[in-house]
């Protein structure tokens, strides 16, 4: 009955991409790119998390309700970050950097 059995090579491919991304993110950390360092590190991490969720966790093949719940978690975390940083980053009496 099993809903959607992926061929094994999908898992091996995702694994290879994850390993390559890890290598890439470590290499990038040794170059001074200013603000881009943080952006690159987080972008690669977000990409890695996305392919783990879609393929290892089978969300790509899950019901729409599951999609809604998964996206909901990101949305609520987004609210947390947006409102908190909206406050902390706009306090004029606070020196940054």
């Amino acid at each position, binding site marked *: *009955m*099993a*809903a959607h*059995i*992926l061929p*094994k090579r999908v*898992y*091996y491919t*995702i*694994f290879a991409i*994850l*390993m390559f991304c*890890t290598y890439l*993110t*470590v290499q*990038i*950390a*040794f*170059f*001074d790119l200013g603000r881009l*360092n*943080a952006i690159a*590190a*987080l972008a*690669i*991490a977000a990409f*890695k*998390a996305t392919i*783990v*969720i879609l*393929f*290892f*966790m*089978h969300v790509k093949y*899950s*019901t729409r*309700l*599951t999609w809604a*719940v*998964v996206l*909901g*978690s*990101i949305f*609520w*975390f987004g609210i*947390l*970050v947006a409102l*908190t*940083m909206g406050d*902390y*980053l706009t306090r004029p009496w*606070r020196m*940054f*950097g």
Partner: protein
Amino acid sequence: MSPEAAHHPPVQGLAHQFDSLEQQTEATTLGMWVFLVTEVLFFGGLFMVYTVYRTWYPDAFAAASHTLDITLGTINTAVLITSSLTMALAVHSAQLGQRKLIMIFLLATMALGGVFLGIKGVEYYSKFVEHHVPGPSFHFEEPQFAAHAQIFFSLYFLMTGLHALHMIIGFGIMLFMLGWTWKGGITADYYGPIEIAGLYWHFVDIVWIFLFPLLYLLGGRY
């Protein structure tokens, strides 16, 4: 019609409130995801605290992050990603009802999880030796950063410690799944428990995917 006739013929693993195993797997998967949402926000609060303090004290955080062992961190990332692969293969084997392979892959996942925790222990030990553990004996090499470096290490131990606790719980879940599979409870039709355990394990992997760059890589290694 007798009440018995309205019942389904017994299906292994099927709870009476579900029409089919497929429906049951869908429901349990959804339930697990709802739990994982609470986990996202649980860790999310800590990531939020990290973001605020890192914005306030970028130099102290970079200096403190620099003292972490990037080699061990990278090896641990690779180990955990590999354990996610073996977990995915355990689920794959469960979908095909390959009892022996499920157990092999579950054991491999547990072994890799053990390696991760072992390496983490080595890292913790060196932090204790260097007096980088927050508290009365805390000492940081660059005195101008000491106070704020202590905040970094508080977050480091809290976040990696909570992550490690999740790994230990995952270890217990895998042990339980191993016993369940051993007794023949997992079949190609009833593979849901392995799938759910896999979701948990992959989630813990994802937390580390974010912890690794934030704690180890943004420390001005150049």
